[in-house]
């Protein structure tokens, strides 16, 4: 093992540990704002792994789209539906969680056994490396042209669909309706804060 391979292995271990810890935090933490920020950590470590895999263009796209767009969108969503509500926990919730964890561990064992047992045919061809962006562009405009155009149509459909779904449907015809349309349907912050202060033992 020469120096470059050692550096690759160490960075893979660091990135993998970061990714797994952040992903567990996303799933297990109680506060959803922490989960959203840890999701950004998952995306950034994934982008580092893409760089290890000679995919610089996809790594840049990952940071731009996932961290810059999707994560910010999720944070906005959290702010818009931010309401304190006590989830009614049954007494036997842990049975379902334990069963789910068991099934997921079994799935991981299955996938791991498959990955280790399969004799992969590692190609010895030289990697595209810095020319990967050129190769992706050639693919997008020759043999992947139809999926590329379909993806653009799908993005347009998703844009229009999201606007139609998220739009308010009431039409403001008089003054009172306009007033109610401009206010968010959530409790004022100080009421929620006072309630949380008055009964802190429930947390």
């Amino acid at each position, binding site marked *: 093992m020469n120096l470059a391979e050692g550096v690759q292995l160490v960075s893979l271990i660091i990135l993998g540990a970061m990714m797994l810890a952040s992903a567990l935090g*996303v799933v297990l933490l109680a506060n959803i704002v922490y989960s959203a920020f840890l999701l950004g950590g998952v995306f950034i470590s994934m982008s580092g792994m893409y760089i290890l895999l000679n995919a610089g263009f996809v790594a840049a796209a990952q940071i731009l789209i996932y961290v810059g767009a999707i994560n910010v969108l999720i944070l906005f969503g959290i702010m818009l539906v931010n309401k304190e509500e006590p989830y009614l926990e049954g007494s036997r919730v842990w049975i379902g969680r334990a069963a789910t964890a068991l099934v997921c561990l079994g799935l991981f064992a299955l996938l791991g056994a498959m990955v280790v047992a399969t004799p992969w045919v590692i190609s010895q061809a030289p990697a595209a490396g810095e020319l990967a962006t050129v190769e992706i562009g050639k693919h997008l405009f020759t043999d992947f042209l139809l999926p590329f155009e379909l993806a653009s149509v799908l993005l347009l459909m998703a844009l229009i669909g999201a606007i139609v779904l998220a739009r308010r449907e009431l039409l403001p015809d008089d003054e009172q309706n306009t007033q109610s349309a401009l206010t968010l349907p959530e409790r004022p912050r100080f009421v929620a804060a006072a309630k949380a202060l008055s009964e802190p033992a429930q947390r």
Partner: protein
Amino acid sequence: MQLEYFLLLAAALFCIGIYGLVTSRNAIRVLMSIELLLNAVNLNLLAFSNYLDPAEIKGQVFGVFIISIAAAESAVGLAIVLAIYRNRNTVDMEQFNLLKW
């Protein structure tokens, strides 16, 4: 040997995502778990592209497609969550029983 490391990491991320998808009560956390699943698939595709097909990198093209589809999915999913929140005044997954009978 490095291909197996990436595949195992992707499998672990996929299983964590499935666990979150099943056990979360908050609808936005379900969306985040779906993003984890998509990222795991993307890591698999790029690992195969680098180790099995390094000259003609079709896996990276698929990765770019998956990223764009994930952006569309996230936008529509959050719009649906907002619409449900406006109608039902909650984001608890247990109380979304519109399609039950």
